[in-house]
Each structure stands twice: as C-alpha cells, then as structure tokens.
C-alpha cells in the first residue's frame, strides 16, 4: 500500500514528498516477567504510512504510549525499523549502511522534550552547538565552526558571551534554544520536534513556538512536530496525524481535522483538551472520556480503539479498519461515513 499515492489522488496536487513512510513498523522484544515466561513483543509502531511534503509542518498527536516518540526516532533511524519503507528525498533510508547514512544525518535533525536532559552537562554551550558541525562537517576550519556557533546562538536568542557556560546554568527555555541551535547548526532540511515545548513555562512556550516558526520560514525547513498539546499543534501544523496504539487512525489538514474530526478517537482526544475560557470549558465538561489506553503488549483485536469507542459494533472487533481516503483526509474507522453524516447535522 502506498499511502502517498492515495493521498495525492484524494487531495489537491501536492509538493513532492521529502519524507515518505510506507507501512513502517518498530517492534521491541521485551523479556517476560516470570522465569519461564516467553519474550513479549511490543508493537510500538505498527504499519504506519504517511508522507511529509517539503516545507510542510506535520503535527503528530496521541496519548502517551501511542508510539509518537518511537516513530520520531525511527524516522531518523535512531531506533531500527522492524519492517516497512522509509524514503528521504527519494533515497531508501532503511537500505543505507551506517557510512552512507552519515551524509544524510546532516539533513535530518531532532530536538527533544527535556532540553536539559538532552544536553551533555560536561560540555560548554559552544561545544554542544559545535558538536554536530565537528562530526558532520569535519572539513570546516575551526574558526569557521566557531563563527557559525556564535551566529547560531545569536539567531536563537542566546548571548554570544554565554558560549563558555554550561547547560545547567540555563533555564528550561534557554536550554531548548540551545537544543534548537545545535540541531540547526548543520543546516538540516528536516527537523523532527519531539514535544519541544511540553516542559516549558507558559510564558516561554510561545517564545519557542514563534522561534521555531521563524526559523522554519527562514531556512525552508520541513517540520515533524510531535506533541500531546493540541493547542500548539493547531497553531503550528498544516496537517495533523493522529496515532493510537502504534497505528494511524486519522490524517487530515489542520483546518479539516479541527473543524470536523472523523475518527471517534480524534473526537475524544480533541474534546478532552482544556480550553482557557471558563464558559467554553464548562460546556465541554460533559464530553466523556472512556477508559485508558490499553497495554500495547496486548492490543484489542480488530480496531484497537474499540474498547473505548462509543460507536463500536461487532465488526470493529472482528476486522481491523484500514486507513482509507474520506472527505479530503484519511481515516481508519468502519463507521466513518455514518459519523461524518452525523457531524454535518447542525446541533
């Protein structure tokens, strides 16, 4: 199944994909709990297909345990994929050996949720930001590297005289700026952001989101923006992908998915997001959330969401719904058409 081909048929002509993910799976083998128990398989990412167009921002949302972070790491080959295909700028990433992958590493970078944990405490800020340059652009003379580090620091809002300080001397927001500077120093085309603002203070969050958007425009970046915070995804992403237990349940443009979420899980997730407006919040209060995300070791048969779904019928436990085109997006739900018709009826 080629998700990208289907998508281009369903929607308006799109820019060529920079990243193309086809039926990607990442399974972990975990030791059993008892002495005679067998190894168990955790299907963290289980047959995921999507494309990211050049200069696009794709948001990925879902609850913890849905496979967001594993997927992020698999995209950059930081964890090995079990099966499937991964193409970056037309090149088959999974077929490359470590040596031929190296030049591509420069083009694909990542920033993490906990900026302080992601920075080496024994290195100065200058060393941290210069490290990927040293590793991936060894031909650059030292002075040139230093100049680039200083320019990068200035661009993300750090002072050049902080170049010899250590990461722990910075606040969370500043540490995330260091993380962004480190990722962008090698001038990547693709930036994967794994919960980049989740651990930041409210007043710092918007600073960092603005910075990411400015840098994206200046440097023609393609962003994969992973977050459980729907509000920042709604602000920054052009398309949104919803994951549930390692599978894609819905992909659609930002405007379509927030105006009319098709999958029952998307609806539940969106309805649960607290709204900073007491009148609206109190209206939403009754939106029920059922149950918790099941163990990924033992996902329900058929549709993994059926155990929490208010619309589940017999078919949902018997047959796994495939991701298919509907209403300009893609959704994996047997009853999507019926639910879509319901949603169109004004309340």
């Amino acid at each position: 199944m080629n998700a990208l081909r289907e998508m281009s048929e369903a929607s308006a002509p799109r820019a060529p994909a920079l990243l193309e993910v086809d039926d990607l799976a990442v399974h972990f083998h975990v030791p059993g709990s008892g002495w005679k128990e067998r190894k168990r398989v955790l299907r963290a990412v289980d047959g995921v297909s999507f494309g990211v167009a050049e200069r696009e921002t794709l948001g990925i949302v879902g609850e913890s345990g849905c496979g967001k972070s594993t997927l992020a790491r698999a995209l950059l080959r930081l964890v090995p994929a079990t099966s499937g295909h991964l193409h970056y700028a037309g090149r088959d990433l999974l077929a490359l050996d470590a040596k031929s992958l190296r030049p591509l590493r420069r083009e694909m970078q990542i920033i993490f949720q906990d900026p302080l944990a992601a920075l080496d405490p024994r290195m100065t800020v200058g060393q941290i930001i210069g490290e990927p340059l040293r590793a991936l652009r060894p031909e650059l003379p030292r002075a040139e590297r230093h100049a680039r580090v200083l320019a990068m620091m200035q661009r993300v809002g750090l002072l050049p005289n902080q170049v010899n300080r250590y990461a722990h001397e910075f606040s969370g927001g500043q540490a995330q700026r260091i993380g962004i500077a480190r990722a962008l120093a090698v001038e990547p085309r693709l930036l994967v952001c794994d919960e980049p603002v989740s651990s930041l203070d409210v007043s710092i969050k918007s600073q960092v989101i603005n910075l990411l958007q400015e840098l994206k425009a200046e440097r023609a970046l393609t962003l994969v923006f992973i977050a459980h915070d729907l509000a920042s995804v709604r602000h920054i992403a052009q398309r949104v992908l919803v994951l549930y237990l390692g599978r894609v349940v819905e992909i659609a443009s930002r405007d379509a998915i927030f105006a009319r979420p098709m999958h029952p899980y998307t609806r539940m997730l969106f309805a649960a997001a607290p709204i900073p407006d007491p009148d609206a919040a109190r209206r939403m209060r009754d939106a029920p959330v059922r149950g918790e995300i099941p163990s990924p070791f033992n996902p329900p048969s058929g549709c993994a969401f059926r155990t929490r779904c208010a619309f589940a019928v017999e078919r949902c436990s018997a047959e796994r719904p495939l991701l298919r085109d509907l209403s300009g997006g893609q959704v994996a739900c047997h009853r999507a058409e019926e639910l879509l018709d319901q949603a169109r009826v004004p309340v």
Partner: protein
Amino acid sequence: MPVLEVRNLSVRFATVSGGTVSAVNDISLSVERGEVLGIVGESGSGKSQTWLGVMGLLARNGRAEGSARFDGRELLGLSHGALNELRGARMGMIFQDPMTALNPFLSVGRQMTEVLQRHRGMDRRAAERECIAALEMVHITDAPRRLAMHPHEFSGGMRQRVMIAMTMLTRPDLLICDEPTTFLDVTVQRQILALLDELRQRFNTAIVFITHDLGVIAEIADRVIVMYGGRVMEQADVHTLFADYRHPYTEGLLRSVPRPDVTSHGKLATIAGNPPDLAHLPAGCPFAPRCVYREPRCETQMPELLDVGPAHWRACHHVGALGKLETAA
C-alpha cells in the same frame, strides 16, 4: 467562616552561602468550604511553596512566617505531632507525581488501610471494606484485587486515582492538589478533573488546585489567584479573571497561549524574558523587568493588592487600559 485563612504569609529559604531566598512574600488569602481555588503561576512564582508552608512540609532550610488558620486553629508553629494528626485526618495533599507519595514496597491496600486504622481507629477488616468502597468511588474497577497490587502495577492515571482515594478516606475539609494532572494525558486529566469535582460536591471539600495550565483553571476553579515572583498579582472569580483581567501578567498569560478550540495564525503574543530568579528579585514589582507597561516606580516600589471591582484585586501601578499585547500580536 473560611476553612483556611492565610495572613501575611512569607516563606524564606536559607542558602548554603548564608543568604536567604524569598519564595513567598506577604501573601493573604482564604479558602471557603466546597470551593475550588485555582492558583496559577510559573516556575518561581511561589505557588507550591505557599502551600507547603501552610502544611508544614517545607524543606529543612525553609521557614514560614505569618499566620495560617485552619478552621480557626493556627497551623504555623504547631508541633510535628499535632500537624501530623491534622494532615492525616482533615487536610490532604496530592502531588504531581503520585510515586513520590506512595510507598513502592507496600501494597496499595496496606497503605490505604493504615490511614483508617491510624486516624479512625478501625480494625483491618473494616478498613479493607472501606478502602474497596473508596477505590470504587474513584472508578477503579475490580477493587478487591487491586488492593493487593503495588503502585508500579498501576498506570499513571490509576495511581493518581489511588492517591485521591487514599486522601479522601478521611473525608478531609481541605484538599491541596499540586499540579496533579501535569504528567497525565489530556484524556486522563479530564477524568481526574471530573472526579475531583464529584468529590467536592459529595463531601463539600475545599480544593486548592495549583497549576500552570490556564485551560485546567478555566475548567475547574471557582476563584483564581495569579502568582508571580512569590506575590499575588491578581485575584478574582474565574469568569471575571478570564473576561476582565486587570494585570499585565494575567494578560500576558492569557494572550500568549494558543487555544485548542481556535486556529491562530502568525505569531503568538509573548511575554519577553525569563521567569524570575528568586535570589535576585527586583526591589519593586517582580514582574516589572518583563512588563510592557513598566513605569519608573514599578522598579522601586511593590504595588499594593487593591480592589478593582467586587471581589477582584490586583497589584499593579499601571492606571491606563491594557491591550498592548493584543496589538503587538
């Protein structure tokens, strides 16, 4: 009479270098029975230290001064034993990470029954029955079997429910929740908020809900106190605070967060600068260095908390209208 009345509370910490850090400066507030008081603030706002100070749970180098009367009885200066009695029986506290409060080595049942045996003098069988009822009350299914389980066998959301069930065993008059849903998914958060609201209605428990998340505040709080740099910046009922805020910091918080229910375009409004460094607070208003309405006196003189409407107070020198941030965005 309010269940808790705090007057001129300050919390200070002695530093290794011999100095002091003021985490909370001269705060007064009260909590009524059955209400949810929301406390909003960021790192360094003093939002947690205020309540650790009230509960007598400060770190060793910390000291609370002023007055905190619980049901008419002064808490500050109370002996360790007397405080323990009160905390167990009539005041409860729930933290961000339930694992900091649950003992990983003991079954949940053992930890829960202990509360009842100690504070309500029950025997073990009766205590167990009560614990099963408490777990069912927080919508944990299969409660009898769960009692034998250890905390690590529960999911994060379930652990927080166990924590709430345990705290509610003694039907406290006051429940302090310090960012109880920050680590949880929005779906689980929604369930925990609904649960707290249910308990409040059922037992008329006063809830203090500390968070940095304005969405959560909008959803659960009746009244709100906005803190910054160890001081109260603004205080109002929840509808007034969101619709008619009068403090530049409140404006900044409300205007800078993207909303899940509205698509925003372009740049977000921001509050420039970083959260305050408590060791180097300015002489005047702690928010002054980041404030777009700053006047010369803001840097030297802390504004008093004065009323700007019925049951609505703010601490700010600025007399004109707000709205600068909106136009900046």
